[in-house]
């Protein structure tokens, strides 16, 4: 009952590359990453691909399978029509290092710009309810696969790497800002440094999130509301005009 899968995998680097055809036998329950590993083990030992957990928990193996951003370890082969080739490309938004591995270091530099959690001073142990935890735990499910960054048109088409943080970091900031005990204020950061205003809530990020985080509804829109409240509320602007900048 062994069937054969036909893969077309990008081989190359940032300068050049080609789609190379491979055939591998398909086993029950196989995922795209298994097929890529089978190619690696039998036909292309130097094929570069990242992975770790193979269970959708680490976010290492993002790629574009038949044009759709996917975690390859959670992408079942039997979902694709038998007999038709499956194309596998690296994430488009980040520079290719080699084959399916891309340079995602930009994300790590953005992360550094986000001020850390700031607990209330002098408390050994924090106290908050599960309902309060639920709100931020959604954001903390993020596995940093960067699929949301990959599909965000502000990055993918407009390449606003210098002015925009991307959905991943709105999720990160939301997780800090909505933490019931956090003392820091990152509203200015999301408005200015992370360029939240560039997001026009097309929800592409939400659609691709393998952790089903409601990125747009639960992270981005509430942050936009906070920015609007702080910086664009006419009553507050008047208050600031009259009594100084501290609101």
């Amino acid at each position: 009952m062994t069937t054969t899968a036909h893969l077309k995998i990008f081989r190359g680097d940032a300068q050049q590359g080609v789609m190379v055809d491979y055939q591998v036998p398909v086993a029950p329950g196989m995922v795209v990453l298994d097929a890529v590993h089978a190619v690696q083990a039998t036909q292309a030992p130097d094929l570069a691909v990242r992975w770790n957990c193979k269970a959708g928990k680490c976010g290492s193996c993002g790629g574009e399978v038949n044009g759709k951003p996917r975690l390859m370890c959670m992408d079942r082969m039997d979902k694709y029509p038998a007999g038709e080739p499956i194309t596998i490309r690296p994430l488009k938004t980040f520079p290719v290092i080699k084959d399916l591995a891309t340079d995602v270091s930009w994300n790590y530099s953005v992360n550094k710009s986000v001020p850390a959690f700031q607990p209330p001073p002098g408390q050994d142990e924090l106290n908050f309810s599960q309902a309060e935890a639920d709100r931020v735990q959604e954001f903390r499910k993020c596995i940093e696969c960067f699929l949301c960054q990959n599909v965000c048109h502000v990055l993918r088409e407009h390449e606003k790497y210098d002015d925009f943080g991307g959905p991943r970091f709105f999720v990160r900031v939301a997780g800090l800002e909505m933490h019931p005990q956090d003392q820091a204020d990152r509203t200015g950061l999301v408005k200015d440094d992370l360029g939240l205003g560039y997001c026009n809530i097309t929800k592409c990020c939400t659609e691709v999130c393998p952790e089903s985080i409601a990125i747009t509804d639960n992270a981005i829109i509430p942050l936009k509301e906070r920015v609007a409240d702080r910086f664009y509320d006419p009553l507050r602007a008047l208050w600031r005009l009259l009594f100084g900048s501290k609101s």
Partner: protein
Amino acid sequence: MSKYQTVDYDVVVVGAGGAGLRAAIEASAEGAKTALVCKSLLGKAHTVMAEGGVAAALANVESRDSWQTHFRDTMKGGKFLNQWRMAQIHAQEAPERVRELERWGAVFDRTGDGRILQRNFGGHTYPRLAHVGDRTGLEIIRTLQDKGVHDGIDVFMECTIRRILLDDGRVAGCFGYHRESGRFVVFQTKAVVLATGGIGRCWQISSNSWEYTADGHAMALWAGADLIDMEFVQFHPTGMVWPPSVQGTLITEGVRGEGGVLLNGNRERFMFRYIPEMFQGEFAETEDEATRWITAVVAGQRPDARRPPELLTRDVVARAIRREVREGRGSPHGGVFLDIASRRTPDVIKKKLPSMYHQFKELADVDITREPMEVGPTCHYMMGGVRVHSETQESTVPGLFAAGEVAGGMHGSNRLGGNSLSDLLVFGKRAGEHAAHFARSHSAATIDERQVNAAAAEALAAFDSAQGENPYAVHEELRALMQTYVGIVRTEEDLQHALEQLQSLRQRAARAKVGGNIQYNPGWHLALDLKNMIDISEAVTRAALVRQESRGAHTREDYPDTSAEWGKYNLIVRQSGATLTVDKSSLPEMPDELKQLLKSE
């Protein structure tokens, strides 16, 4: 002479899972110029896969809990072979390490009164595991990562360390390569903290990622350090068994902690038949009693019944499952059933075990809120590792420290679930602190160019083979060999066979052939890793041959009993020339007050 980049640090931490990150944070806080080197991207290390929770006697859910009870549970779980001082420090310091994480932004699940919630787990007397659903490891690694990036630590991602460089017996640095470019790099440093995790890629059915290729164990061995307890490899009772794609993928013990039960192919709840003598009287003896315990726990009450036998220690449960399957009472795909669907409501299952739900739904077409899972043992954790000083985590090589899974001694012959995340926090911190102290109190050592050139030549050898072995194929054979002959149950004959085969695999690995160039070349990387894996597989096999008894995770079919005499010794593996030696080392004497704790029930 090889070309290489040289960088200079006080402390170099190898590995960026929980132990490495925690060590780097502490070393940096102590004022050491600190590098953190990892094979993957930051935040992807194996800690991310830890699911069930971190064990700490916070006593938030059960006020009777204390470090003393945690200590006793840990020693009992390890069948008393643990380094008692490590187990004591671990039990005493784990609560503060967990509270500290919370102050750094970790968001654990909460109790009704707003404190950190704790769940039951195998071998723990009381609900002790602070957790976040079933993704506790992700929470811990992300918290440490987000703390660490603000602490002035230099992170070298996708960089593999291959060799410890020595100057007259002490650490002078370490040698490695950037995975992306293939370029060599020498870290000149006074202290190295190994935090490289485990060795699970030596077995075929494993919950471990590609990174677990025994790097730190092997580098320590080659540098002349002692390894301890190498015969003890933990097979987690519940890995996925079907489909083949996910065979070995972990299913958290939290499923049983939340009330899940194990059933054989005849739908019989078999664990009642496997309660070992040392745990007699501590576990429920009837289904009714076990159900009463779960009912009370679910209702948040103190149970008046004993715990279900599914919560026995991992070594016991893994052996029981193996036996049920061997004796023809397995599930259709050669495992047993783990059922939570009949115990908890779909909403609770999805809330407390979200990634288990997701994982089975997506990868196995099983809805765990409606049907049982099929499970079987999977190679999961290495109890053995670098022999370290219990307080400082320094190995027998000056300047070489180890923390987390790569360090040995803390867990004895079997680790309790939840004690790994706490181990890496407690001893990661200590390793970082003492590595920084070491660096401060020692002058710089000198890098020996010859060692660098030898390491570089060794690394490039695979490109010179005109024709040779496919490293992937050799690796698969190693995994099959260890699975069959050095698995859960061992015999002298099997172990001898494994030793012979390892020799032949070693020769074949030396002829591994690599295509392509040095840039991001996984085939090359694997060819290099084969040496670590084969050497450490041999260390495990040799220690397993010497220990002629069954204890914890080490089961000898030809020596089925636990022997009081063998309980007096740890085994130490060392490299002597080209061979590995195994020596007995007496357990350190335990103070009377701790002995009393172990006696008290």
